[in-house]
């Protein structure tokens, strides 16, 4: 008796799960922000380097729109793009580069044009106190320095390669990590001595790491575009969120995390 009952519960939960994923394909027409109070869930897929800043933006957006529940999925940009291509229910995508964004747009997964909302610069991340005495990109190739990078498919990894190339530095990383946050955590843990990440990541990690600036001549400016994903089930909230990110309020919040303004 008990067994049959629990089996039915499992089946019901399973069927309910099937049903909810089935109607994600329904598309809503593009909508502009309406005066009607916003509501429902908003699923924002954002690059790993936006973890701290977007979490804060989400909180203030929810405070301004009490009916909306913002949920974030932070990962390396290519991971997010793959997830959206495979039908993950995203309403908004904030990418750490234009290449991945353009790819998704070309494949028809975005609603309307993307908006650039921030820029970022690269910085060398090292352990607090810079024990290996790293002063610039050339020092990453020194013997005894364990340098790790992001995989070339991750925007930060691609930018790192550009920066190293422009400085004429040849260095083989010990590991190609899947995201910026993975590089930072290996520096924090002391497993690696140096990596190249965004300035904002060094700021966000606080006293757990230190940063070494990369001169403007060799630095690469990362461009962050944001877009509403086609097939969003909450278009009103999605457009409101992207507008909020590029608004004066959103921009000053991003600036407080070290991002450079969109324009």
């Amino acid at each position, binding site marked *: 008796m008990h067994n*049959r009952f629990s*089996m039915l519960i499992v*089946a019901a939960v*399973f069927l309910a799960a099937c049903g909810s994923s089935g109607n994600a394909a329904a598309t809503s027409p593009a909508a502009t922000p309406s005066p009607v109070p916003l509501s429902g869930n908003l699923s924002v897929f954002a690059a790993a380097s936006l973890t701290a800043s977007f979490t804060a933006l989400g909180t203030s957006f929810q405070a301004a729109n009490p009916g909306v529940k913002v949920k974030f999925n932070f990962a*390396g940009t*290519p*991971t997010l*793009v*793959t997830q959206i291509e495979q039908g993950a229910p995203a309403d908004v995508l904030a990418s750490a580069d234009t290449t991945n964004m353009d790819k998704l747009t070309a494949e028809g997964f975005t609603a309307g044009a993307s908006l650039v909302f921030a820029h970022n610069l690269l910085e060398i991340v090292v352990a607090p106190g810079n024990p290996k005495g790293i002063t610039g990109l050339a020092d990453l190739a020194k013997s005894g320095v*364990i340098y*790790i990078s992001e*995989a070339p*498919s991750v925007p930060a990894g691609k930018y790192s390669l550009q920066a190293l190339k422009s400085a004429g530095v040849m260095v083989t*990383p*010990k*590991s*190609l*990590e*899947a995201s910026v946050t993975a590089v930072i955590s*290996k520096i924090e*843990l*002391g*497993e*690696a001595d140096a990596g190249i990440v965004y300035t904002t990541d060094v700021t966000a990690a606080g006293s757990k790491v230190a940063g070494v600036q990369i001169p403007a001549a060799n630095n690469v400016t990362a461009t962050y575009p944001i877009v509403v994903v086609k097939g969003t089930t909450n278009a009103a909230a999605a457009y409101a969120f992207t507008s909020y990110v590029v608004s004066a309020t959103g921009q000053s919040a991003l600036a407080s995390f070290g991002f450079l303004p969109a324009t």
Partner: protein
Amino acid sequence: MPIVVLVLAAIGAAFFIVPLLGLIVRSPWRDALTALTAPETLEALKLSLFASLTATAAGLVLGVPLAWLYARVEFPGRNLLRALTTLPMVLPPVVGGIALLLAFGRRGLVGSWLNTTFGFTLPFTTAGVVMAETFVAMPFLILTVEAGLRSMDRRYEEAARTLGASRWRVFTRVTLPLIGPSLFAGAVLCWARALGEFGATITFAGNFPGVTQTMPLAVYLLLETNQEASYILSLVLLLVSLVVLVGLRDRWLGSA
């Protein structure tokens, strides 16, 4: 036969079979050979084979004595020790990777000593991959071998002892041959689990082609750059696992 049970069983079976079908249907078969013989693939395959076989060897050397201890010696805390040494079977592999970092990483409990004494660090090395795989896979071997030891007829060991064989000789010449099938099953399960290891490896050993990038890591990163190739590599891993499970069914699950 109650119809409800049949229907639920069918749903249950479909739940496992449909994802496999998806992989098979969506794989670009025409490009399979190109994807399989690409230098990066071969490198990952070679590393995976080496690391998983080494992990299995390490599992045999360290795991069989543990299994023997659990099956033959009554001591306080035996159940707790068994639970601790088989924990990675249920632990998320990433957690295993973090634990390994905190123990054997450059600043870890043992790792910092290794580093200062021998100038030797494990993360970002193939040795690190082998450790991560052994950590996750060895419990399968321990449990299989322990079951084999418990179910074997101990009178052969006693007979050998009364005939004057030393304990070590009995162990190597009587016990081990008698549990041969369990040893084999345990080793194959351990190897298959090591071959598929992802979370602990990427966390503890990192990811670099030819050094620490095993097949599952290559599949994960290829999904973002070359999806077709990642489907093909996934299929290879899937076929290996399937062959192992079908081949072992009688030993591991008991004959149907």
